[in-house]
Structures are given as C-alpha cells and as structure tokens.
C-alpha cells in the first residue's frame, strides 16, 4: 500500500490534480462564510489530497513535503489555535469564545470581529482535521509501521 503505484496514468493524473485539490480545499476553508463548506470539509479534502499523494507517489514523496513531526504539530496547533482564540477572548475580558472581544485588537466593529474570529477558528479546525485525517489514513494503510521499520514488521507478522 505504501509503495508507490506503478500505473503511469494514475500517477500523472494525481500529479496534475493534487495542487488544484489542495487549493480547492483552502478555498472551501476560507469561503465557509458565503458558501457551503468550512474548516472541517476543507480539512478533509486537504487530508485526502495528501492521502492520494501517499497512494500514488509513495511515502518518501509525501515525507519530503509533510514530515511526520509536522503532521503532529499541525494537529495539535489546530486545536490550540481554536482554544487559544477562545482564551484570548477570555483574557480580553469577555466570556470564553466571545469573539466580539477581538474587536479591541483587530480595530473593527464587533460583528466583523466575530466574522474574523470564525475565520480563525475554521483555520484551526482545518489544520487539525487535515493532519489527523492524513495521520489516521497513514496508520491504517500501513498498520502504523513506517517503511524504515520493515524488519519489525516481519517480526510482527511472524510472531503475531
């Protein structure tokens, strides 16, 4: 599963489509205010694009763009962005997640502060969902054993 695919057609099509899929995912995240979509859907699409790359081009190609550590970092940072925005509101004197308090630092009226707060929150959701979706797919498709650890893999297969 983790070895790159041999099929030249799938490989090339994936190569051409992945950047557009990624941009579309980001578009979905950013335009959740006006059209269907939002952080969650965009994050899933972004994670799916990385999964597509993993299937077609193999682990090394993906690792070059998105090392494991960065995946985990993004996953954590996404939730921290969300909770952190809430905490900022709390520190600015409002209740938790009361984005209208952000108007003090953003210099806009409360309604627009809420809108921007929603955008920030969606970004956080997008990061987390993207990282975690990719990570879950990676774990399930490889059984959690990285390509460098094939020896261990064999041991597991043999010993059960």
């Amino acid at each position, binding site marked *: 599963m983790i070895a790159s695919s041999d099929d030249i057609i799938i490989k090339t099509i994936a190569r051409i489509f992945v950047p557009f899929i990624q941009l579309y995912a980001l578009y979905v995240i950013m335009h959740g205010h006006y059209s269907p979509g939002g952080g969650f859907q965009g994050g*899933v699409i972004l994670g799916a694009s990385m999964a597509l790359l993993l299937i077609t081009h193999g682990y090394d190609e993906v690792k070059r763009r998105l090392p494991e550590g960065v995946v985990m970092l993004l996953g954590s940072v996404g939730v921290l962005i969300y909770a952190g925005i809430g905490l900022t509101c709390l520190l600015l004197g409002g209740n938790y997640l009361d984005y209208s308090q952000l108007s003090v630092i953003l210099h806009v009226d409360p309604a627009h502060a809420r809108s921007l707060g929603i955008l920030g929150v969606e970004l956080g959701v997008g990061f987390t969902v993207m990282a975690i979706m990719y990570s879950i797919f990676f774990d*399930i498709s490889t059984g959690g054993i990285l390509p460098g650890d094939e020896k261990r893999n064999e041991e597991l297969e043999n010993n059960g």
Partner: protein
Amino acid sequence: MNVPFDIIILLFVVMCAIAAITVRDLLSAVMILGAYSFFMCLMWAQLGAVDVAFTEASVSAGIGTILLVAAVLKTTRRTKD
C-alpha cells in the same frame, strides 16, 4: 421538492444498506457502503442540507471509504457472513 425522485433515492439507500451487510466479500461490502453514503448525500442535498451533504460526500463517501478499503486491504477480504 420532487417526491418521486426522493422515493427513488430512499429506495436505493435502503437497498445499498441491505446489500452492504449481506454481501460476502468485504471489499464489495465496503464499496457498496461508499455508494450508500453517496446516495445519502444526494438525499440530503435534496433536503436542502448542503453543508451536511458536502461533509458527508467528503467524509463518509470519501475518507471513510478510503479508510475502510485500506483496512480491508491490510487485513482480509474473507468473511463468513
């Protein structure tokens, strides 16, 4: 809303659900589940829940099916029921 179209989708959904749990090959069952999710997502788009339909299309019909396929390929296609 168009009632007959609705009923057709609902029937497809039920058929897919029954097929998904009765087919004796896990890979086919998983694929049928993907089709089920897709019909469900059409149904919701029909009901006006575009956000939910979009999410379902990307999550259950997309990532969910991929995860199930990956798991089936990682384990086995054989099943007794």
